[in-house]
């Protein structure tokens, strides 16, 4: 099968959706001639022209709000926020307008909008260019959140996000852009619905739940664990909202052990939500306390030494899963 990088896969999704649906257009900073800070929109300006690949001034609050207006009026905007950290400037527009319009104004006020944004660390970009903020958004009803971990998912889920009638926050991990993976060549006519997790590795002993780049790390850790005789099951959430609790809990009920991996900070993180849901629904099936590996409650430093110390690592994940095997309730 053909392989693509995450970046190429996302670009292909944008291309196909823009070709299929004339109401889809992209807007954001430096997405035209420059092709986006990470190159995702490269070539789209030539293919679709400046009205559908719209370079904006540096006005995140403004152009996110503009995209919401366009969505309410019948377009399907795909916004690029250059770094996830900058989405905080547009938080109000997303939380107070986009997320609430369908509920408050009714079925005619759907807001079919996608916010694509690179999240996560690992590149030495420092405190304001490395954050994983999806947990903040998971707290807002009305927003969907997608965070793919493979090029294939990046493509199919972005297509699904664009076709979805809700505002969707689409988190693209910076390390996904250069990750290579198999992506079917033929544009599948079947488009997924958002909200399905995927078991990326079957296992009997412990369930590791992750999303975005943490899934890739969990998968690698699972290989190490296998060598140590621990058979880990890795569940990739793929979407945080809606959350596929069923797939997660079915797995946990079977393995009896749950480890959640989150790149974002610990307190108030999304791992806490999953852990508590497990407590609510499969408590009697747990053989060990729930564990999580997260970033501690600190900003991400520019210094590679501190950045690596803060971010969850393959070894930390493997160690936590191994420790779960000897934990008892």
């Amino acid at each position: 099968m053909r392989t693509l990088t995450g970046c190429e896969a996302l670009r292909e999704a944008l291309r196909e959706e823009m070709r299929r649906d004339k109401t889809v257009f992209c807007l954001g900073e430096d997405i035209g001639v420059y092709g986006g800070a990470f190159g995702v929109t490269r070539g789209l300006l030539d293919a679709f022209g400046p009205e559908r690949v719209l370079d904006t001034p540096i006005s995140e609050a403004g152009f996110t709000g503009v995209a919401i207006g366009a969505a309410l009026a019948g377009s399907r905007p795909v916004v690029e926020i250059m770094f996830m950290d900058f989405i905080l400037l547009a938080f109000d527009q997303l939380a107070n307008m986009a997320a609430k319009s369908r509920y408050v104004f009714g079925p005619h006020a759907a807001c079919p909008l996608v916010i694509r944004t690179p999240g996560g660390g690992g590149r030495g970009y420092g405190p304001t260019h490395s954050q994983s903020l999806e947990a903040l958004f998971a707290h807002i009803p009305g927003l969907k959140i997608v965070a793919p971990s493979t090029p294939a998912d990046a493509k199919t889920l972005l297509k699904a996000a664009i076709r979805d009638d809700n505002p969707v926050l689409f988190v693209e991990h910076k390390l996904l852009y250069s990750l290579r993976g198999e992506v079917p060549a033929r544009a599948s006519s079947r488009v997924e619905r958002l909200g399905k997790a995927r078991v990326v590795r079957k296992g009997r002993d412990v369930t590791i739940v992750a999303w975005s780049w943490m899934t890739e790390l969990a998968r690698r850790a699972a290989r190490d664990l296998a060598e140590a005789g621990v058979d880990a099951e890795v569940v990739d959430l793929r979407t945080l909202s809606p959350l596929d609790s069923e797939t997660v809990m079915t797995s946990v009920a079977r393995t009896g052990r749950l480890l959640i991996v989150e790149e974002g900070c610990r307190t108030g993180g999304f791992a806490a939500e999953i852990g508590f849901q497990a407590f609510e629904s499969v408590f009697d099936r747990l053989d060990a306390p729930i564990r999580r590996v997260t970033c501690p409650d600190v900003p991400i430093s520019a210094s590679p030494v501190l950045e690596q110390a803060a971010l969850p690592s393959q070894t930390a994940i493997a160690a936590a899963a191994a420790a779960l095997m000897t934990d008892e309730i």
Partner: protein
Amino acid sequence: MRGLDECHAYRLMLTIRCFEEKVEALFARGLIHGTAHAAIGQEAAAAGACLALRRGRDYVTSTHRGHGHCLACGGDARRIMAELFGKETGYSRGRGGSQLMADFSLGFLGSNGITGGGIPVATGAALSFKLRRARRVALCFFGDGAANQGVFHEALNMAALWNLPVVYMCENNRYAMSMPVERAMAVSGIAERAPGYGMPGLTVDGNDLDAVYRAVTAAAQRARRGEGPTLIECRTYRLSGHSRGDPRCYRTREEEAQWRRRDPIPAYRARLRERGLLSADEDRRLRREARDIVRDAVAFAKRSPAPDPATLEQGVYA
């Protein structure tokens, strides 16, 4: 010029240039990581503005392109370089990197990774000066791109309304990353917006150190007299790429060559030579000094220790 030590100003520009060129070279050689934005071509704006302030008393907020601003405020090249190397001896002890360093003892309130983020902060520093009846001034560097953030509007409105001692110093270098100014705003310049807020606005040649110095001196005096904020737009050009790995596909090599002919440093050198303020020997000496400062900074950064991971969780709260 009154109050200005021209040779010092010239050496400062040389130091900034030398520093930024070294940063680009270190990135190219993979010796520093992450990202950094060089201000090559914009030295006159940084130096002219900061030299017009009272060091340590007045405050300066900076941008993502802040190494030069920090040096111009009297910042230590060693600690800036060490920060770029992510070392414990850096201004932010490796926590901030290129876009987040500060030296409060010099009134340098910090560079900022969020475009436009410093604009309200400088305004707030000015508010504090006013409330404390201090005859001090806050100067806010920001780019042409930052002028399109919502906070620009909100902050300038408050500054004019409350008559705050702040100088808004826009470095219009023609581009925000790949976005030319004329595609980002419908008016022909940032200073044109000043009357809309009820403050004076002026445009100066940002590649002419003396012109910048004069404009900021006047604006700072005005602010100290309690007459309120001023918006100054410096027309300049970033001769370097936006950041590491910028292919510069959004502008022509001819345009760059044209601006290279207006490079602020040779122009200033010629002016000082013409006025008899700088001999050939002195020029050589100043250039050597600038190179030495940067070479020493790199050596310092290289031999400095990395932060201790055991300290990771310290210092989040006061």
